């Protein structure tokens, strides 16, 4: 469904992605883990052409994203929902107006229909009573959930999550994990999650890829991932107190 073919990207004189090859399958939750600065967010931004590769191609369902022109790019982007690390809600709009914004700007739906749908999506992410509030009035976790409501209101096929649990307490993090998992189970969306939180990755991922020095050094299902023999993967696991003996299963509720 989404394929990276030898994608290389230089930023600030540093090779962030180095001939990256990666494939994400329809309907799965693919989690990209790695240390800070490993290129996880850069990888995500290539999928919707917020960044373009210096060489190589990003292909979404047979279409080369970096070669698309205005209208074609818009059509591809309409298939994506994107949850930014900060939520990226517009500060001067109410939460409800933020959630309904894509529909208000791109469809002929009436205000009443849009408000109704916005209420539904906010309720789906557990924020039924914040419609009139401003983003500044919400906590970090609530802002991310509101942003998720905005990301799903257009019923995208693919949702990209950029560090969805960073800066959140463990309880809120697990609530976000459950929401991501629900998106796959109930709405059937393909999800790509970028995180350095391995507990989260193991809980929600159908496959996990470890990005290191601009390349995927391991791609495996969660139980195989924790048993990986790749040294940087083992170091990364141990740094988060996860061992190949399966202690993560006790630590994370699937």
């Amino acid at each position, binding site marked *: 469904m989404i394929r990276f073919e030898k994608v290389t990207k230089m930023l600030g004189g540093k090779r962030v992605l180095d001939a990256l090859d990666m494939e994400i399958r329809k309907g799965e939750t693919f989690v990209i883990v790695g240390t800070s600065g490993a290129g996880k967010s850069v990888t995500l*931004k290539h999928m*919707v052409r*917020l960044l373009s590769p210096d060489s190589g191609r990003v292909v979404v369902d047979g279409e080369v994203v970096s070669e698309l022109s205005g209208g074609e790019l*818009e059509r591809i*982007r*309409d298939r*994506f929902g*994107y949850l*930014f*690390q*900060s939520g*990226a*809600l*517009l*500060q001067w709009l109410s939460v409800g107006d933020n959630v309904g*914004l*894509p529909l*208000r*700007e*791109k469809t002929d739906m009436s205000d009443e229909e849009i408000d109704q749908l916005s209420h539904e999506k906010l309720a789906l992410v557990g924020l039924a009573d914040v419609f009139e509030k401003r983003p500044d009035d919400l906590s970090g976790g609530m802002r991310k959930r509101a942003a998720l409501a905005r990301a799903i209101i*257009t019923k995208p096929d693919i949702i990209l999550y950029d560090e969805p649990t960073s800066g959140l307490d463990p309880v809120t993090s697990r609530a976000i994990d459950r929401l991501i998992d629900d998106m796959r189970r109930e709405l059937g969306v393909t999800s790509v999650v970028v995180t350095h939180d391995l507990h989260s990755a193991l809980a929600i991922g159908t496959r996990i890829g470890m990005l290191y020095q601009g390349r995927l050094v391991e791609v495996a299902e969660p139980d195989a991932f924790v048993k990986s023999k790749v040294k940087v993967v083992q170091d990364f696991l141990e740094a988060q107190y996860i061992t190949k003996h399966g202690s993560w299963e006790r630590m994370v509720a699937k």
Partner: protein
Amino acid sequence: MLGEAFLFLPHMLKKRMRHETLYQLFLTGIKSLGVITVVAMFTGMILALQTGLELRRFGQEVNIGTAVTVVMMREMGPFMTALIIAASVGSAIAAQLGTMTVSEEIAALEIMSINPVRFLVMPRLVALSVMVPILTVYTNILGVVGGAIVGYTQLGVSLTAYFDNATRYAENKDLYVGLFKAFLFGIIITLVACHQGFSTTEGAVGVGRATRRTVIISFLTILVVGYIVTRLFYK
């Protein structure tokens, strides 16, 4: 950016865009009125005092009405208005869009296929290109009134003589050229501010830099464009 913005002009008829444009008109116009009032009044008073004192040496102080009115309409009205709007509204636009850029709100709009030029630039462009000329007319009127007060209280020029002189020698062309300049200045301020805002990097430091650059670049561009327009119309 300007060409792209004009392509989106029909979108201005949409309800949300109309609301946003009205809000920007309010921000630009009403919120700037206080400072513009003070600056315009004192600009006219200083002009009247300086020219009046010189003209009095030749017994011509009665002509300050013409001097103040012509200078306000041709140059000082649009120029002072544009400087105030660049420093207050232009810097605010750059700071807002800069903050939106570094907090990924602009990227979020792009992914939602909402064109930031249509969504953010157009309402501001329309508001400033309409409101700067309107505020210029207001500045001109207050400047002329300020000059009349100084002429009457300090130079002994009667109000009748002042306004008779002011209306006799000032031409429609002076007003139209001044308003044309104001229109161009409104566009310049918006484009500079939006460009700086969208180009912001490096967080809060970058927002500060974008704001400062907006004011400096707008001031310099206004000066140069002001001279070019004057040169074109007054040979």
